[in-house]
């Protein structure tokens, strides 16, 4: 869904991060299980989200 948001909006940068290859980034965000979603380094979700919840999070997240 992250990449879908980036396809639809020029304001969205979507990045899929493989944690075994980037443990430092994963550690910085406290990733202990996947999938984990981090939006603007400030809002975090563990597990899958519904479309509605995901889009709402994008629209309400504080600016970076």
């Amino acid at each position, binding site marked *: *869904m*992250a*990449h*879908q*948001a*980036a*396809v*639809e*909006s*020029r*304001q*969205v*940068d*979507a*990045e*899929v*991060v*493989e*944690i*075994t*290859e*980037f443990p430092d*980034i*994963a550690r910085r*965000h406290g*990733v202990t299980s*996947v*999938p*984990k*979603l*981090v*939006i*603007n*380094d400030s809002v975090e979700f563990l597990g899958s989200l519904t*479309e*509605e919840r995901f*889009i709402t999070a*994008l*629209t309400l*997240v504080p*600016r*970076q």
Partner: protein
Amino acid sequence: MPLISLADQERLRTELANKLESPVRVELERHARDKNCKPCEQSEELLQEITALSTTLTLHTRLTTSELAPAIRLVGKARGQVRFLGVPAGYELPSLIEALVDVSRGQTELSETARGQLNALSHRVQVRVFTTPT
């Protein structure tokens, strides 16, 4: 030995032929300093196999001094940026294929409501999804 089995390559070839609409540039960044970067090598090999399945896909590889490598960027009709950090293997491969198709089409299966809300975004949003290949 290919990373994607020949049977899967044929299935993928058909899928891409049916779904891709416009060109997608697949940009791979490999470590400039670490010549023995195995994930960089695997990513390039995987992307070579995938892009060989369709003339709509082209692979462009360059070296980077950034630590964020291998990094794959999909460039086409996406309005924002779509990137994968690390080898998109295992469970991530279908995500990569789906992303390729959506970037090629410039549209997704998101609802009209979602698309409207995304078009109304007034500030930059970075979304990071952490995964593993298994």
